[in-house]
């Protein structure tokens, strides 16, 4: 029996990615990284800034996400996210800009702890890409 399941990543503007031969997906869930294999229990969770790693056969893709919601059901994994890009073809300048933006957000005073945590996560992940 194959170990593959379906993956769909949708952004508000379009269906970003659709694959039916995925063997493993690692998602940056809010409470830590989470690996999803076939026949995982039904799951709903949300994401913090991080890297989604998609393993499909001999191919491996990585995407950066800002936030999102994950639903896994009947071997269909749906990831809803508003900000996602492929790491392999994004230039460093853009990443730098995003880091700067996040850092300036972080500098502002009126942030609650959760927000602060999320943004500092973002800075960390983005810096590790550079």
């Amino acid at each position, binding site marked *: 029996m194959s170990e593959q399941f379906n993956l*769909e990543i*949708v*952004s*508000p*503007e*379009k*269906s970003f990615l659709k694959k039916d031969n995925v063997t493993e997906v690692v998602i940056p*869930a*809010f*409470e830590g990284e*989470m690996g999803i294999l076939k026949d995982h*229990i*039904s*799951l*709903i*969770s*949300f994401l913090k800034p991080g890297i989604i790693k998609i393993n499909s056969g001999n191919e491996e893709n990585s995407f950066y996400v800002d936030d999102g*919601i994950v*639903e896994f*059901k009947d071997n269909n994994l*749906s990831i*809803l996210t*508003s900000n996602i890009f492929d790491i392999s073809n994004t230039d460093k300048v853009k990443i730098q800009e995003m880091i700067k933006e996040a850092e300036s957000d972080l500098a502002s005073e009126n942030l609650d702890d959760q927000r602060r945590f999320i943004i500092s996560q973002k800075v960390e992940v983005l810096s590790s890409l550079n």
Partner: protein
Amino acid sequence: MASLDDLKKRISSVKSTQKITKAMKMVAAAKLRRAQESAERGRPYSEKMNNIILNLSSGLSDKENAPKLLSGTGEDKVHLCVVMTADRGLCGGFNSNIIKKAKVYFKRLSEDGKTLKIITVGSKGYDQLKRVYKENIIENISFKESKNANYFDANKVGKIIIEKFENKEFDVCTIFYNQFKNVITQIPQEQQIIPLKINEDETKKSDESYEFEPDEDEILENLLPKNISTQIFKAMLENSASEQGSRMSAMDNATRNAGEMVDKLTIEYNRSRQAAITKELIEIISGAESL
């Protein structure tokens, strides 16, 4: 009767108007296709979002302590209405239809003694509402610079609404927009987004229990603000498709009317030319006879 020169001028001016309306129709048709495509592409996201929220809220055990965005503030005094219109005119009844729908709703609210607050999205709505409801309008948002409806803009509106909700500035939020049915029909819609109304008919209760990480409440709290932006984005997409559709049919009508007018004027022109010629002939003949 207008002189021949006047008629000629009028014919040429109607013709050039017709050229403009024809061009606008073409442009609207092209934009409509794009708007429709993006409305279709945006559908999976809002559908999935809806599904997840349904699953979550139906599984919610403690309804009392549910997030306020879902259950409401428990009061029903201050209503916030988000009226979404276009930034441009010349699109038939598109803007006025939304305004009409909104005004009926406003009237009902004031009869019930509720407080009304209005946010207008799109400058045409603001122009039409400011005459009567100037003091009710608390914000006027316009995205004239953005070419297409995009999520970034929708998110901005969503954030404003949530911020106002958290500051307890209103209890119920309703959005008004045009739903795109086809090129000739757009249905003005009112949709309540806070507190969220869950359509029970669509509830396909899954027996399957989900694993939530972290717990339901926290996910809901994270999800509901996103859902607001998503709903607004959906409304924006529907609106932009409707706007182009409405403009296309309005311009099509205008082009046809201009054509009819040109025909009528041309007949009149030819008739008066003929009359002038006949008159001249009679003058010549009677002049010759008298000699």
